[in-house]
């Protein structure tokens, strides 16, 4: 009898097995105009399905649960949506603010934080239930939110020119550390992959601010001060982004503001080590995961092109022209491929990063951000 049951179980297995899909090769593409998320398989260059009803997804970003099952989608309209990649369905959704700009998940995967323009501040939710955990008003538009080790979040205040650290290691009521005087109008922030150095880009000043989060107490240090002082600033038709993936070898690549340049700094001394002239105002300067190349896209009117910079020589080694509206680039975790969203063409292009050959085109509706689940295991992404 027991053997018969075992036999039955074996017979039933193949059908069940066919429904299992691991999530480590998956990702999502934000479709802005339709407020939907395209679930993709980067290993087969295929779109698997579409999750709709996510609201205004302009400038939306995504983080993943530690098990790579859930995507948390931060919409511009303040919507926070939890999407189950295994069922391709919404597992939870809250409207947490009027106007939001990105989020982060704590190192233990328990807390999801969202930074808000309106009202300013950061709101923190239970990653499982999306129930509110903490509300951190700042009195400023709040941005550049990242997670760092120790159940902490770091973020910056546009009007106040401050960076705050919210430490949840003691429970749901955070200990707040305010770092004042970081400079005028921080527009974004990034943290290095080790969680040590937080860098805020400044719109209101020629320069950036670095904060050593291992220092006690952490203090702001101006870097690249006056990098544009020799020339009048050029108009910026789209604000650059900073991302943790800008680390290329021992150097960090940073997009200049109001200059058509990538700025290189040494990751330890934070001193400038060089510049690369680019064809336009850089928006993203993203390093391939091995750090050998940096891929750069641009603000209008140059947003149809990409330049690839060799991080050793600082030379532009390739220029690509995927078409108008190149909004985002996401590397496979080992760096062999890169996915590029080409908004106006309604397409994702997949390139081999060694040969620059286009490997695939995937139709998508007004695609912007691309996020692979491997981000789940990276600090600050």
């Amino acid at each position, binding site marked *: 009898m027991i053997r018969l049951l075992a036999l039955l179980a074996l017979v039933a297995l193949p059908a069940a097995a066919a429904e299992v899909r691991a999530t480590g090769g998956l990702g999502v593409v934000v479709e802005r105009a339709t407020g939907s998320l395209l679930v993709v398989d980067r290993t087969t260059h295929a779109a698997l399905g579409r999750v709709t009803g996510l609201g205004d997804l302009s400038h939306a970003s995504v983080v993943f649960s530690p098990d790579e099952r859930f995507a948390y989608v931060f919409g511009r*309209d303040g919507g926070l949506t939890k999407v189950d990649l295994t069922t391709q369905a919404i597992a939870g959704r809250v409207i947490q603010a009027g106007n939001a700009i990105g989020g982060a998940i704590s190192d233990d995967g328990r807390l999801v934080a969202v930074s808000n323009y309106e009202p300013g501040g950061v709101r923190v939710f239970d990653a499982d239930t999306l129930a509110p955990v903490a509300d951190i008003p700042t009195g400023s538009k709040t941005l550049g939110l990242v997670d760092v080790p120790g159940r902490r979040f770091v973020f910056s205040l546009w009007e106040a020119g401050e960076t705050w650290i919210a430490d949840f290691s003691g429970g749901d009521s955070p200990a707040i550390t305010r770092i004042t005087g970081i400079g005028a109008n921080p*527009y974004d922030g990034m943290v290095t992959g080790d969680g040590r150095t937080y860098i805020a880009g400044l719109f209101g000043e020629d320069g950036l601010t670095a904060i050593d989060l291992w220092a006690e107490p952490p203090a702001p240090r101006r870097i690249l001060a006056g990098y544009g002082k020799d020339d009048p600033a050029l*108009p910026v038709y789209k604000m650059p982004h900073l991302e943790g993936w800008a680390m290329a070898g021992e150097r960090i690549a940073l997009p200049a503001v109001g200059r058509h340049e990538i700025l290189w700094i040494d990751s330890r001394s934070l001193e400038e080590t060089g510049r690369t002239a680019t064809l336009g105002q850089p928006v993203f300067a993203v390093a391939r995961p091995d750090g050998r190349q940096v891929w750069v896209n641009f603000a209008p009117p140059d947003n149809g092109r990409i330049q690839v910079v060799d991080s050793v020589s600082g030379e532009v080694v390739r220029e690509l022209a995927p078409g108008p509206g190149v909004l985002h680039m996401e590397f496979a975790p080992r760096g062999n491929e890169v996915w590029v969203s080409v908004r106006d063409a309604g397409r994702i292009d997949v390139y081999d990063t060694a040969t620059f050959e286009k490997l695939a085109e995937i139709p998508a509706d007004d695609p912007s951000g691309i996020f692979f689940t491997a981000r789940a295991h990276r600090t600050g992404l």
Partner: protein
Amino acid sequence: MLSGGLALLLLLAAPAEAGELPAARADELAHLVVNDCGSCHGLTLAGGLGPDIRPAALAGRSPEALAEVILDGRPGTAMPPWRPLLSEAEAAWIVGYLLEGPP
């Protein structure tokens, strides 16, 4: 004075001229408003890093002043001058489009 007066006349005349832009260019400008203005002001223009620029928020503002903000930007803020990319007639068309609200 003369050039200022002429510029003003041109701007005042602009709403009437707005309809004279080629349809293809008008489509491009509508696309630009949503995507490029939208990158700071939000896809729905309800505001982001930049302020709300929906019709209710702009009510009472003069079209000429709004066109000037588009063409010359707002020094000291993140609003860039669009003059290198847009003509005065195109800026006036965008003002009309913003004041009426996208269809």
